[in-house]
């Protein structure tokens, strides 16, 4: 049985806003986002880095939130799907996903978008192979990836 342990204050920046949250050392960034901060757009698919559903951007890089201990995120800048766009101001990738039919069940969608955004931040005009490689850590069971690849390609034009 677990002993009640020390909680620690974690400070980070999420979607541009400074955030302070009390965490246990064993919690992952994914748990903090979903259960403590209620940013449930980041999805939980496998909790061991195999599916990419929990992809967020940390200090400019796409990472699996389930493979980051919350306390490792101290002082980091995190971008989640909630910060990517708003209904009135969609990120070009979000618009392109809607337009090109890249969304089915939607469970991989936030992670796909964050991987796509990390790619476009670094490489605004990726070719198809670069797009495929950029989302190769994000599993999707519905779409066969075709329309997702297409949507990222079109968003970059």
């Amino acid at each position, binding site marked *: 049985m677990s002993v009640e342990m020390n909680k620690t204050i974690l400070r980070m920046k999420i979607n541009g806003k400074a955030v302070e949250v009390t965490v246990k050392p064993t919690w992952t960034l994914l748990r903090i986002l979903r259960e403590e901060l209620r940013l*449930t*757009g980041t999805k939980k698919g496998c909790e061991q880095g*195999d599916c990419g559903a929990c992809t967020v951007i940390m200090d400019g890089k796409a990472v699996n939130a389930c493979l980051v201990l919350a306390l490792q995120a101290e002082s980091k800048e995190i971008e989640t799907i909630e910060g990517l*766009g708003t209904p009135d101001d969609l990120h070009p990738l979000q618009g392109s*996903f*809607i337009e090109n039919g890249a*969304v089915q069940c939607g469970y991989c969608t936030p992670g796909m978008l964050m991987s796509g955004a990390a790619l476009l931040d670094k490489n605004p005009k990726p070719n198809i192979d670069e797009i495929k490689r950029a989302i190769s850590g994000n599993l999707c*069971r519905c779409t066969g990836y075709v329309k997702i690849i297409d949507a990222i390609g079109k968003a970059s034009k």
Partner: protein
Amino acid sequence: MNKAKLNYVGCSTPKVDAVDKVLGRAVYAEDIRFQDMLYGRVRWADIPHGIIEEIDVSAAKAMAGVFCVLTAKDVPGNNRFGIAFPDQWALAEEKVLSIGDAVAIVAAETDEIAKEAVKAIRVNYCELPVLSNLHEALANDAPQLHASKISSYKKKSGDHYYPLGDGGPQYDKKKRKAEFLHNLKGNVFLHTKVRKGDIEQGFEQADVIVENTYKTHVVDHVYLETESGVGKIDEHGNLVIWNSCQYPFRDRRQIASVLGISQNKVRVIRATTGGAFGGKEDVNVEIHIGLLVHATRRPVRMVWDREESMSYSTKRHAFEIWTRWGATSEGKLCAMEGKVYGDTGAYAGLGIFTIKKCGIHLAGPYYIPHIKVDVCSVYTNNIIASAMRGFGVPQAAIAHEGQMDELARRLDINPLTFRLMNALDVGLSTETGHVMTQEVGIKATLEKLKAVVLKDPSLASYWDDLK
């Protein structure tokens, strides 16, 4: 009354749910949280087959933060459930037949405590021999996994179930008796016969015969969202469950029966569902959430880990399909015989229908005048196999398409041409004797493929015999 042209039908209108999904705002079951919500966890069977001698939940119950630990004796209604017929226990009673059987369930203040509590439950079993494949289950000396008389389940289950699934308006129970073995013989619980034409005469006409046994493997749906749900009692005292499912009404039927309450006291709402592919037709978390909410009167969330989903969710059936096809030297199919065995695991689920659908699609989209197929659904101790996208037909297609290519090769006919020569058409009948009307599309799909191949030199170069 003139209707203007179709403005939307035929157009690639954006999906109604796409905006919420790209914004991360779509609400899946695990995204729902209520105040005072408890976390549910399952203690799964430790072995695939055995008699439960003792379940000791005292240590788990004594843990701080644990609100309830339930076993079979705590089930208020009928402990039996199942889509086709109630051969599953909500919480295992007497014995376990599969590693996916729930022995006990726990609700606790945190998920961490719930997991610890599940581990603290002690279960003693007397292990029984395990039937791990079709051959073991069909052996003469194999132990029979389910009671001989299905009626014994029915008596216990009240009247919410129909022996062959959902019954139907023109469904004749008496007529179906021959197919559905009310008195189980061993572990075969369904035997469907397809008889068309005269099989012996059919093979007499054959100049070429190809015989093969196809073995297909078990696969999983792999929806990215695992089985999950949240339940609570609403302001009217009704049980409300948000889940990830394919048919809330059937979930309602099964939950109500296990809780022993009427169906109008149960409300099932499908939350945004992260993929299903047939794997969320069977009940997974719903009944357990219902039981825990009922016992604690508090909201309860239950979410399976990925490992639980892969281990305990329903699967695509493993099949063994022996089949023999005959064709004339001119390249006309004349006879087909098949024996189809499907391993449905420890419980029927939708397996009855899946396995049957494989057998009645074994001839593929081709006209064959003489057919004899026997289809058997078999119980083993494997994890339950039930619906998955294609519902038995993917396995049938592996067999019939393998046979078609082998026959084409023996007859030295291009495989695409050979399919066109035998494709179903208006006026011809399917394996089950359904005479086709004007809606047959198989030739059109093959003609289109042919056109694509002939137009593309890189593909056409494979087939110099395609004209």
